């Protein structure tokens, strides 16, 4: 698939510390339209923090984020809320609104944030739920859904806002192994349809088959990045090789099967 190189997201020199601990030490990369970036790296090395800096749930100390030609960082709260609508986010532990059923989860932001009419929001919400294969579960509450279904509702909830880019923060890490496939399937479909995505994951099968570029974060720095083929077979650093080997051993090989 040939890509038009349309710049969607720019991450420029992001720094973030928690107390003494500097978890991000100047991260920069670009995301183009339709591209899937996969971020990997050891736990506790700032991958989730980086995603949260992108939609300003965490405010970085230094650096800037750009959505197309507009700066996301350094704005007042109102502007920030406007940008967040355009940046969808999927969380590791779903964070569905437990008091609302699936369809209400998807439509609430359409009504309360976008000011859509109720029936209009319901149509749009149903459309998104069907897209993730949950049309029939629309009236069930989060506590009545499986983990995989919950995560798919949360993807539908983010998609309903028509975001320019989707951020996934370890979307399958809280799932039982047999439920991971359905979520990855939805993400794969999204990528194919041309959604721009930034994904933090340990699923190497997914990274190998879907990612346009893999970014390896270590100790708060971007150690190495490149297309999967290059990172898997000719990594620049020994460290990258070792980490990928470990992940593959733990989470299955490059075709997504356990070795």
């Amino acid at each position, binding site marked *: 698939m040939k890509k038009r190189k349309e710049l969607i997201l720019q991450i420029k020199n992001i720094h973030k510390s928690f107390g003494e601990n500097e978890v991000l030490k100047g991260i920069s990369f670009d995301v183009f339209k339709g591209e899937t970036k996969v971020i990997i790296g050891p736990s506790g090395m700032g991958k989730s923090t980086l995603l949260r800096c992108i939609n300003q749930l965490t405010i970085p100390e230094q650096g800037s984020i750009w959505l197309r030609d507009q700066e996301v960082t350094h704005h007042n709260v109102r502007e920030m809320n406007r940008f967040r609508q355009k940046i969808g986010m999927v*969380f590791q532990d779903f*964070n569905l*609104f437990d008091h609302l*059923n699936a369809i209400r989860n998807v439509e609430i*932001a359409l009504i*309360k944030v976008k000011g859509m009419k109720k029936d209009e929001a319901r149509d749009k919400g149903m459309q998104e739920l069907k897209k993730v294969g949950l049309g029939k579960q629309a009236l069930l509450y*989060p506590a009545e859904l499986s983990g995989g279904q919950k995560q798919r509702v949360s993807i539908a909830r*983010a998609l309903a*806002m028509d975001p320019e880019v989707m951020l996934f923060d370890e979307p399958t890490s809280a799932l039982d192994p047999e439920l991971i496939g359905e979520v990855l399937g939805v993400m794969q479909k999204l990528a194919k349809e041309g959604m721009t995505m930034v994904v933090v994951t340990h699923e190497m099968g997914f990274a190998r088959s879907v990612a346009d570029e893999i970014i390896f974060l270590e100790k708060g720095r971007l150690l190495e990045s490149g297309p999967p083929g290059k990172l898997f077979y000719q990594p620049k650093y020994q460290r990258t090789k070792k980490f990928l080997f470990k992940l593959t051993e733990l989470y299955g090989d490059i075709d997504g099967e356990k070795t």
Partner: protein
Amino acid sequence: MENFIVIYQALPFLLQGIITTLGLVLSALFLGFIIAVPFSVGQVYGSFWIKKLIGIYVWFFRGLPILVLLFLFYYGLFNMIGLNLSAFMAAVLVLGLRSSAYQAQIFRGSIQSLGQGQMLAAQSLGMSKWKAIWNIIVPQALRISIPGWSNEYPAMLTESAVTYAIGVMEVLTRGNFIASRTYRPMPIYLTCAIIFLILSYSGMKILHVLETKVRIPGFEE
């Protein structure tokens, strides 16, 4: 036999007290609720000084005996600022403010038990903090609060009898009045006690129905 006649004669007078007692309890609970919701939100999401101020408020109203509060407000403060309130209104205010301190703590606990994820998810969709609090946090926190909140009703009901001290014409005040006239404390106070027990029981029943009505499907009891 004479006891029954005393009760029979006193009953209409005592039963009128139910209106006052229930009116007092429900108004005070309502007033407490109206104050407690924003205060509990303020205690979790407010700035440093808002948290501090609410903390002092809660400490004050929970730290003083109810009688001290009643006297302090009814004979002291309201007089001083020239606020001419009936004993009933004063009692509603004092019991309501006191209840708000307790209710705020119940709601605060529920809000904190929700976890940060709900707020993050709401914000990630572009909701402002206040929209998220109103649409996502508060509805869930109130549901979680119902079992704990159910204690507020019998607590308030039993506490309401203290307003006898400033002459609110509730059940006990009326009972006291008759007992001192007929010199038959036992049947009269027993009747008062039964009235309180019936009020307490039926109130709890209603709260339980409410709890099952708003329960979120799929959650265990």
